[in-house]
């Protein structure tokens, strides 16, 4: 076909025109259509599709990151809820422990108080008993001392006032009384 395609000299080129409906317009339409197809293929292959692909991949990448972040957020929320639940459990357990300790302390305190009261009462009783014994002992000692003192006084008085005869008579009376007293016991 190349031998049948020929470029005419510039001087034979026809005049320009604005609009016509003829074979030249038809050939122009066909050439422009072919140009359009070539340009569409070139732009699509070189620019449009690669840029679209790049943006699609980036969107996927970002979406994947967003999904990951969302999953991590959900996991974090789950952990937080679990932690809060545990915290609530711990709080409850702490309150229970405190209550138990308080109850135990109150119980122990009442036992200690009871023991102390009992001990105090025993000490008081012992003290009273010992006091009574002491009192009794002192009374007896005082009694004996008074007897001894009275005897001494009586002896002194008698020594001054009584003669031998009166002394013997009193001695006998006293012996007689002692004898009677022994019989009583």
């Amino acid at each position: 076909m190349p031998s049948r395609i020929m470029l005419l000299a510039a001087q034979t080129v026809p005049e320009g025109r604005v609009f016509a409906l003829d074979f030249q317009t038809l050939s122009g339409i066909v050439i422009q259509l072919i140009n359009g197809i070539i340009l569409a293929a070139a732009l699509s292959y070189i620019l449009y599709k690669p840029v679209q692909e790049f943006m699609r991949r980036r969107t996927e990448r970002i979406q994947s990151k967003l999904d990951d972040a969302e999953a991590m957020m959900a996991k974090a929320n789950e952990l937080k809820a679990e932690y809060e639940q545990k915290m609530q459990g711990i709080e409850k357990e702490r309150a229970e422990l405190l209550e138990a300790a308080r109850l135990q302390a109150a119980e122990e305190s009442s036992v200690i108080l009871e023991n102390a009261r009992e001990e105090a009462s025993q000490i008081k009783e012992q003290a009273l008993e010992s006091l009574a014994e002491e009192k009794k002992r002192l009374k007896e000692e005082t009694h004996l001392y008074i007897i001894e003192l009275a005897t001494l006084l009586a002896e002194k008085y008698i020594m001054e006032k009584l003669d031998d005869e009166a002394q013997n008579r009193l001695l006998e009376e006293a012996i007689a009384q002692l004898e009677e007293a022994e019989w009583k016991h």
Partner: protein
Amino acid sequence: MGLEVKNYWVLQVAGREIWITETIVNTWIIMLVLIVLAMIARIKLRSFKDIPTGFQNAIEAIVETFDAFALDSLGEKLTYISPWFFMVFIFILSCSLFSVFGLRAPTADWATTFAFALATFILMLFMGIRHREGSYLKSFIEPHPIFFPLNLLGELSKPVSLSFRLFGNMLSGTIILTLYYALTPLFVQIGVPALLHAFFDVLFGALQTYIFVVISLMYVRGAVD
């Protein structure tokens, strides 16, 4: 800049003349620039980071915005044809932007706009038959077979109206700017044309690009749903 689409070369193919017009050459220039830019972006894609900055941001914004737009207009099941409309979008917008630099917009030639509208029409038919099978063809004879010529005409008029809308708008901008350059003295041809270019090429161009792509997407979606 002239009103006519100039012819640069004439090819003799199988005994017929094929004119290589200004439109075709400008299309090749724009294609070359876009492919080079795409290759630069592709090379830089290797060093693209998760958090985009600068050039990466611009590339991602273009692709992502169009992607969302195509998904919204075409729906999930037709997104595989979005690369074609991505090209249409970028190409028509580039045509308008390149005309700021004095390059006649290829979209100011009906051959270009009809080529893209024809592609939309072919896609519309193909997708309609592929996704709806018999029910799509049946829609041509609804509500009664007598309406077939009207329905057919309605379908055929879609690429025609689509192509003429863009062609007319782009050509009107070209005509206005050509007239301005031709009819005004030299001292007002500095500064003021920048505003006209900004309006007709950038603003109008972006608007017409959007309209052309949206209507194309709606036609294809309409054929499938």
